[in-house]
């Protein structure tokens, strides 16, 4: 990429002059730091926090923290790929969908790994990347959307929730290989969860249903990501 070179030169010049300054001022230079990684990590942990702030003893992922980071990743030319790490119990549907849409719209290669659990709204986030992995022991609970707390206007809220569920289903089926009928079947299945409808899908089953692309952990995810990065670099060269 020829447009990068002058920038690098400038950076080097700046680095050198600041180094010279440091040596002149203090008689020493700083210890060299590790080079910046071209792969960044986006952890989605604990509950996904929406409009209501959860008490601090809860481990939460706040979308107002993640969305600026996603924009920064998109903007930074040094970052070539993103790994999304998931271990979440779910949480706010709209915050989760917002994160999923943001991750799905990153132009750089993205890979997700589901570790431990990627439940409820963790599912759209897991499938929003270019390629998704699940470790064999991880599980994903597929269930209908629900609501706690005070409800004003029950019929309206019911319809609203139904539409919200439709959005989740459309996102998941649009970004993974699972068929809508299968996903709905798993979502409304009886007898899998005690006294509840839904299914708890374990690692290998998630891959079988087409929800997740492959079984794998860090090694596989890094390998796939570097593959996707070199593919996208090739595409840029051709252009």
């Amino acid at each position: 990429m020829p447009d990068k070179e002058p920038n690098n030169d400038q950076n080097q010049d700046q680095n050198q002059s600041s180094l010279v300054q440091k040596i002149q001022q203090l008689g020493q230079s700083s210890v060299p730091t590790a080079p910046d990684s071209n792969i960044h990590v986006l952890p989605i942990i604990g509950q996904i926090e929406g409009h209501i702030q959860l008490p601090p003893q809860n481990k939460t992922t706040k979308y107002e923290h993640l969305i600026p980071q996603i924009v920064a990743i998109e903007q930074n030319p040094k970052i070539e790929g993103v790994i999304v790490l998931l271990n979440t119990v779910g949480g706010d549907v709209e915050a989760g969908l917002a994160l999923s849409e943001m991750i799905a719209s990153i132009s750089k290669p993205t890979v997700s790994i589901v570790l431990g659990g990627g439940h409820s709204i963790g599912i759209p986030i897991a499938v929003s990347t270019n390629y998704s992995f699940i470790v064999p022991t991880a599980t994903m609970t597929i269930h209908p959307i629900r609501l706690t707390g005070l409800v004003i206007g029950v019929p309206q809220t019911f319809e609203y929730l139904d539409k919200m569920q439709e959005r989740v289903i459309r996102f998941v089926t649009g970004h993974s290989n699972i068929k809508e009928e299968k996903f709905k079947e798993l979502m409304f299945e009886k007898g899998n969860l005690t006294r509840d409808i839904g299914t708890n899908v374990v690692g290998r089953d998630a891959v079988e249903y087409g929800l997740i692309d492959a079984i794998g952990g860090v090694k596989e995810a890094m390998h796939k990501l570097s593959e996707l990065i070199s593919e996208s670099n090739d595409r840029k060269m051709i252009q």
Partner: protein
Amino acid sequence: MILYTPLSEFDIFPTDQASYTNRQMIDVDEMTVEIEHIEQGSYRITQLLSTNPQHFLNQSLTPGTTFQLY
């Protein structure tokens, strides 16, 4: 005691406001760090918010580290 209710736990047992105000977000270099106030002028790092994996190798910002702010 068993509570059988559709209300969320936090509606029944409201959390102490102090636990919210104890936590703060501060910026250190390019990183955002969540800190918790433990006692007079002393803080503990609870979370490091960064997408750069290299930042997590920085010993001084490891969650759990305590430091003094004057």
